[in-house]
């Protein structure tokens, strides 16, 4: 069988993560790397022995042999690139968040239907081993019915992507980072009915996007939740995640440090790492590849991603209005 031909758009942080996983997938290969910064495209292409690199993504859309567009660009560009790619008959996987506006998400979903192409949003937590393990336990009924959940995600500000400073470009910490926890909780616990959030631009200077947010959630099934996203950690702080699910029959919790099987300390740095069989990014891209080959539904639909987006937008609206916000949202926020 011939391999699916992939063009990677965006050679930044996520682009680097994705191309490494594409290189492990037998049924697909990256044949072009695109970045608005051509040098960056060239560098990443060279590193993975990809011949072609471009500055403008439109150049790869014309290439008939390209089957898949992997959109790893900043959030504010997702819709344009994804819709145009789908109009050219390409299957599209786009990094989370799907977009910053529900209207844009809807356009993307419509474009995928209209052009009969596969469309998936890369919510990697649905493949992240500890979260998958937690989901399995929840689904097994061992915890009983969910009652109260907590999820945190803490990191220094992503300096490599300064567009995260702008609410109109990246949406802020809750839209960009806590969206992981929100998506997971929707998947594992159920739909959110109401959100109250507090947050602000606490540490960044001259930024418009919140760098710290906490949200209190009500789920339709009577459970409640606390989700916190922080980009205000000191530079030395290791990226940290925490998950706790309490049901009426038990509790589970997991975090990314106590579970790490390797801890490394040198004069230069300290880090820990949790080894797994195949990591979440591999699973995510591999399953998307399979959905194309088998002409099946991709594991995460545009609609699912839109529902997750709606919850994080409700949090932003709640911060703006300082009151609880009920779902569904009546319109866009940003």
């Amino acid at each position, binding site marked *: 069988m011939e391999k699916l031909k992939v063009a990677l758009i965006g050679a930044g942080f996520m682009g680097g993560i994705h191309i490494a996983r594409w290189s492990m997938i037998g049924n697909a290969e990256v044949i072009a790397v695109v970045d608005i910064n051509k040098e960056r495209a060239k560098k990443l292409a060279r590193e993975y022995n990809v011949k072609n690199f471009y500055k403008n993504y439109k150049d790869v859309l014309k290439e008939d042999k390209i089957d898949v567009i992997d959109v790893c660009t900043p959030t504010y560009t997702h819709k344009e690139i994804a819709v145009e790619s789908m109009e050219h008959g390409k299957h599209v996987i786009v990094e989370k968040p799907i977009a910053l506006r529900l209207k844009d998400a809807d356009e993307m979903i419509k474009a995928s239907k209209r052009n009969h192409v596969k469309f998936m949003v890369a919510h990697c937590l649905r493949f992240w081993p500890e979260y998958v393990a937690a989901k399995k336990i929840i689904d097994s009924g061992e915890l009983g019915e969910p009652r109260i959940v907590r999820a945190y995600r803490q990191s220094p500000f992503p300096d490599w992507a300064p567009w995260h400073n702008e609410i109109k470009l990246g949406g802020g910490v809750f839209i960009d980072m806590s969206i992981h926890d929100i998506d997971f909780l929707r998947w594992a616990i159920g739909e959110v009915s109401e959100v109250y959030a507090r947050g602000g631009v606490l540490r960044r200077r001259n930024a418009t996007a919140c760098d*710290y947010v906490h949200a209190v959630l009500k789920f339709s099934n009577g459970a409640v939740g606390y989700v916190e996203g922080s980009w205000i950690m000191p530079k030395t702080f290791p990226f940290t995640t925490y998950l706790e699910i309490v049901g009426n029959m038990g509790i589970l919790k997991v975090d990314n440090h106590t579970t790490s099987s390797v801890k490394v300390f040198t004069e230069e740095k300290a880090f820990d790492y949790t080894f797994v069989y195949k990591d979440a990014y591999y699973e995510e891209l591999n399953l998307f590849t399979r959905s194309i080959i088998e002409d099946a539904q991709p594991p995460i639909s545009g609609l699912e991603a839109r529902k997750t987006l709606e919850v994080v937008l409700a949090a932003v609206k709640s911060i703006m209005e300082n009151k609880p916000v009920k779902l569904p949202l009546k319109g866009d926020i940003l």
Partner: protein
Amino acid sequence: MRKIKFGILSFAHIHAWNYAQVLKKLESAELVAIFDDDKERLARASSAYNVKDTYLNYHDLLKRDDIDAVIVTSENARHKEHVIAAAERNKHVIVEKPIATNLRDADEMISAAKKYGIKLQVAFVMRYHDASLHIKELIDKGDLGKILSIMSTNHGKYPGGWFGDPDLAGGGAIMDHTVHVADLMRWYTGDEVEEVYAVTGLNIRNYLKVEDVGLISLKFKRGIIGSIDCSWSRPDTWPIWGDVYMAVYGSEGYVIVDAFVSNVTLVKEGKPLEWRYFGPDADLNMIEDFIKAIKEDREPRATGYDGRQALEIALAAYDSIRKGEIVKLPLS
């Protein structure tokens, strides 16, 4: 130096047993008399701590001139009655948290303490735990810069008994577990809460008449953000009673207090895993400091007023849940 003579008013609250143990241990204190209206419990406490003078009527205990101070560890709703009676007999008082179940009671207790010139300390033991005290010192030195946000949890198991009785406890997990961390937040920030939003959901234990789930979002007057998870979300088989966890985000640094993780892991055949705590004894530090406050004639570290302010936050949380909206402080 003269020992301070203590009485304990009721062993209804589990902490009474810890305090009694501390009083037996301290050189500067002597546990001379105990009261309980539950005869069987009184007998148990009497033999556990070798206290001969036992009372089924607390007035009789308070009449004794040789008693300097009492610890009130009765059910929350009875604190007022016991504290005011003690004040009227000029006894210094440590009252278990929450100070009371409503602000009127709390205010009356504070007034009585003032009127009779006694020390009224609320048992905010976390102000005396070395971990939380260390962070207070870092904050006061300015090592964290400006405090931006504090995320906290005070999880627990369901304590059982009257804690499930809304009349005696004044509520469930929110009444029981909001005030410790709310008090630490007030202490750390030197600020008062301006806004409270809270939710509860379906209970973990559906047989309870009080809530065992609660989440609170706070804003302080100077804009600092706070959150409290006060849920009794630990099953009976959890290795330890619960936790006090605070993550303090500052403009210059980030610190975590995780006050009850200093444990030895213990597993016995056929039993759930246990964590046996070996950390500092906050109860002991608190009572020692209370004795000093009496001897030095100064205000205790956590006063009746502190107890009232923390209670107001818990009450505002209930108010917010009833209304489904943000509640502004002070409560009217």
